[in-house]
């Protein structure tokens, strides 16, 4: 039976095609920007004869794809990314410095400055992105230059009763809040370059935004889609957004673009973050000259014009502004004016650490759970928790010794058992048995067991920017002592564990009770259309679960969700599902219940069919009521079939990553995250702390292992 294994290797090798020699370009653009970059790449091919293979990756997935692919030689030659991650990319050694082709004087100054690191330049600046004020022309407003003027205009333009607002922007996102913070005189970093959150400007800026929201001058929980709809439907007069917003505006709407106003209290302008998108050359490219040529090609000349005209980008190249078509474009010139006042987002590592705490504080304040005064401290705590100091490196020797001793003990214990009969007598069919298992075992060993063992051992390491250091059990002690945050805070292991247990319990109870109830109804032999009902009721099982999750997330949407629409029919106010823990948790549970009850229903149906009907007849003769029959016959006889299903279901639910991650996304403030999603965040969203995440995974593993031992006992009693 070795043939499947051979076939497998053949299959694997035929499916992996050889890559033709050409340049690979990765980007995260959509729509017009994507078209523009494709045009530019074609022009490059026409000019040089070198093919360009383009891959568009969703922007939020691009960074992790780059950091995992490039070190493994599977990445692109050139990639386009915002400059904020430059420092990280540099530390992971995936980006190469620019050659002499880069002439700094040819680009907007803030754009080249953003690409400088320790005196060297990296990449070629393509475009800049920053925020500006969009105003509908038909409202007859003049662009406000101060916040006082703005507030006056907003008050006039808003009509809370009709759900009309003066201003709309994605207030829950720190990218949009940053200019306000700066306008109030806020500084992100202290003198030592460390992030700071507990500043008066922070409190003031939060309070100001909150007051706008409280006075219904701007909508709650605005998403990009909502902002767009409001603006197009003339239900808001102004929008704060970036160049990409021009593509969202209906063709008929006349608008103008202005710099953000000055904060009256301080006299400081609201200076937006300036993001610079650049074409970077990968450090691992096999064709450095060609890659460099492509990056430069994209950044200058015709390519720039294409990006401006088709992609509606604000060019970094100065020459582009001389172009006739560009010069006429009011949007471009308006943004250039804004950009010249802005400062590039710092490309430091510290900057990357600011986002999550800031977002947490912003949302907490805007949702009303936390006062503006406490917003800063909340962010500060989160910051300290996320950016734990690397634990001290220790010697792995004691661990290795313990491991070796353990293995030796295990082997001797195993061989002690093996005495007595000869091997051939004890296992007459061992040869055949092992031969049959071998292909599966080999596959499992390489692709499941080895990653599992590596995953286990990773928990003893600290990972930072591609470097691992051995730290012993420090990750575990940090987690278990809840270092850096209170036990009752969402980031604490214990809090998450309790949430996870609640989550598992709620789901399993609902799955089993709904599934069993429906199975009993469907079992009724006199029922017509049984088959139809059964088929309809297992639909949720057949839908891929990430689609389920997205679907329900859409349905729980505060403004556009069907759930709130149904509640509205009964005169209930729209619920902001992901703003409070209880409703967010409920939303997760509802989604997962919808997803999971059909499995239990099918299992119950199968088990119910195996119960002989004469038992019920006997019970009926004995005068047992239906309830008694259910309790005394159905339940005990279902146990052997249901118990394994429940155990399986509980393990699945315990690790049900997709639903949590996609539905509530851990909102509010990570409160509804379960252990797996928390581990995922530590691994992929918080500076790639693989070791810490692995330690979380090991703890998950221990919890489930203990649970499996308990259930083994339970089902063991069953068989006895």
């Amino acid at each position, binding site marked *: 039976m070795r043939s*499947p294994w051979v076939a497998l290797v053949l299959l*694997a090798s*035929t*499916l*992996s*095609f050889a890559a033709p020699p050409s340049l*690979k370009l*990765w980007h995260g653009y*959509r729509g017009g920007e994507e078209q523009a970059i494709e045009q530019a*790449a*074609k022009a490059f091919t026409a000019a040089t004869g070198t093919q360009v293979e*383009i*891959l*568009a*990756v*969703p922007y939020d997935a691009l960074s992790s794809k780059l950091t995992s692919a490039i070190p493994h030689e*599977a990445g*692109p030659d050139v990639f386009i990314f915002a400059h904020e991650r430059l420092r990280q990319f540099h530390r992971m050694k995936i980006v190469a410095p620019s050659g002499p082709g880069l002439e700094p004087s040819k680009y907007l100054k803030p754009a080249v400055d953003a690409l400088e690191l320790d005196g060297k330049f990296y990449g070629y600046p393509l475009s800049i992105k920053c925020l500006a004020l969009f105003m509908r022309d038909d409202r007859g407003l003049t662009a406000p230059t101060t916040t006082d003027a703005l507030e006056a205009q907003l008050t006039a333009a808003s009509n809370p009763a009709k759900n009309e607002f003066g201003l709309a922007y994605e207030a829950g996102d720190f990218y949009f809040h940053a200019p306000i913070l700066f306008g109030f005189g806020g500084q992100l970093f202290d003198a030592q370059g460390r992030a700071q959150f507990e500043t008066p400007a922070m409190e003031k800026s939060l309070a100001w935004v909150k007051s706008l929201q409280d006075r219904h001058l701007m909508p709650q929980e605005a998403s990009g889609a909502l902002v767009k709809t409001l603006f197009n439907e003339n239900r808001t007069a102004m929008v704060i957004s970036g160049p990409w917003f021009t593509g969202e505006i209906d063709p008929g709407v006349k608008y103008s673009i202005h710099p953000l106003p000055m904060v009256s209290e301080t006299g400081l302008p609201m200076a937006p973050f300036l993001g610079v998108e650049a074409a970077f050359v990968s450090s691992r490219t096999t064709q450095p000259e060609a890659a460099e040529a492509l990056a430069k090609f994209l950044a200058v000349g015709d390519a720039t014009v294409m990006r401006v005209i088709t992609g509606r980008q604000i060019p970094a190249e100065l020459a582009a502004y001389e172009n006739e078509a560009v010069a006429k474009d009011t949007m471009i010139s308006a943004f250039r004016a804004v950009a010249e006042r802005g400062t590039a987002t710092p490309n430091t590592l510290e900057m990357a650490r600011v986002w999550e705490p800031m977002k947490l504080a912003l949302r907490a304040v805007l949702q009303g759970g936390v006062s503006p005064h406490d917003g800063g401290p909340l962010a500060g705590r989160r910051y300290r928790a996320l950016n734990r100091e690397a634990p001290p490196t220790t010697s792995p020797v004691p661990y290795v010794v313990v491991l070796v001793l353990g293995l030796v003990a295990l082997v001797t214990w195993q061989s002690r058992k093996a005495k007595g009969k000869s091997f051939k007598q004890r*296992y007459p*069919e*061992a040869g*055949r*048995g092992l031969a049959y*298992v071998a292909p*599966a075992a080999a*596959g499992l060993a*390489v*692709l*499941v067991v*080895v990653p599992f063992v590596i995953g286990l051992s990773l928990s003893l390491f600290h990972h930072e920017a591609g470097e691992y250091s051995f730290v012993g059990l420090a990750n575990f002690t940090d987690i278990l002592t809840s270092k850096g945050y209170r036990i009752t805070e969402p980031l604490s292991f214990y809090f998450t564990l309790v949430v996870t247990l609640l989550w598992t319990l709620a789901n399993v109870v609902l799955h089993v009770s709904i599934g069993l109830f429906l199975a009993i*109804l469907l079992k009724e032999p006199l*029922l017509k259309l049984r088959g139809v009902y059964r*088929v*309809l009721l*297992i*639909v949720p099982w*057949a*839908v*891929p679960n*990430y*689609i389920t999750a*997205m*679907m329900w997330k859409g*349905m729980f*949407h505060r403004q556009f*969700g*069907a759930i*709130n629409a149904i509640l509205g029919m009964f005169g209930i106010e729209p619920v902001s599902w992901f703003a409070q823990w209880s409703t967010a948790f409920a939303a997760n549970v509802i989604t997962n219940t*919808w997803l999971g009850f059909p499995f239990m229903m099918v*299992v119950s149906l*199968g088990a119910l069919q195996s119960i002989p009907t004469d038992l019920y007849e006997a019970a009926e003769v004995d005068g047992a009521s239906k309830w008694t029959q259910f309790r005394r016959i159905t339940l005990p006889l279902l146990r052997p079939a249901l118990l394994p299903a429940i155990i399986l279901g509980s393990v699945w639910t315990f*690790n049900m*990553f997709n639903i949590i991650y996609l539905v509530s996304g851990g909102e509010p403030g990570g409160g509804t995250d379960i252990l797996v999603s928390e*581990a995922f965040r530590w*691994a992929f969203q918080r500076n790639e702390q693989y070791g810490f*995440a692995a330690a979380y*995974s*090991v703890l998950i*593993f221990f919890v489930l292992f203990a649970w499996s031992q308990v259930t083994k006992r339970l*089902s063991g009693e069953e068989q006895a």
Partner: protein
Amino acid sequence: MSARTMPRWKMFALHAGLSLTCAVTLYPVLWVVKLALSPTQTLSMSANPFPEAITLDHFRDVLGSTDSQGRWLFGRQLLSSLVVSGATTLVGLSLAVTAAYSLSRFRFPGKQSGMQLLLVTQMFPATLMMVPLYSILQWLGLLDSLGGLVLVYATSSLPFCVWMLKGYFDTIPRELEEAAIMDGATPGQVFWKVVLPLARPALAVTALFSFMQAWNEFILAATLLNDATRFTLPVALQRYVGEYKTEWGHFAAGALIISAPVMALFFALQKFLVGGLTAGAVKG
């Protein structure tokens, strides 16, 4: 419930209850259908699950998507999804069947601990295995290849498949195999002509699960594949869902297109579900 007749009101209540449950169950699905058929890309505040205006534009966009060189992306991605899922099912099933048969029938050293290990690895969160997996696939030269994806999918669903099939094999009487041996069958013939045909319900269910798992998976596929023409459909679908902007119409249309084959397969095989699942489960 062995009653020969049932009062009319009770029957009515039963139908009413079940219809209501079905309606609740189908509501979200209808909602996706509505999004897919409506002309807008955004959600709209409405409890009505039926579309007010119908257009096939979203389906046309999703089905007709091409890349910069004018290659028909959707066609290639569909093909690559089919190849990956089909191959995963084939590879996974053949590995699982042989292994499960061996675990069910033969005694050999390491069997018990091996089976425990199988279960134990299932308790370790899969996302964390991705980091080492990436390096292993690079070592095997299978990064950015459908073959690598097939191997990973097939092995990661193996523990579940093996356990299910083993449970089912345990319920097949040994005497049947012995009768075949006495009839002159070689071990291979016993397996092919007697055991496998008898295990059909469990095979169908296992195949279904393997196929569904490979067809639906997107995290690994999105991480491992670097060529849009070889993306599987869920990865392609991911493009319509951005952090800042979700193209709901495209997403819904794509979701329906992706779900359709799985649902068809699911319903075709659903009669096996009850038997295939519980036979193994009862035996544990």
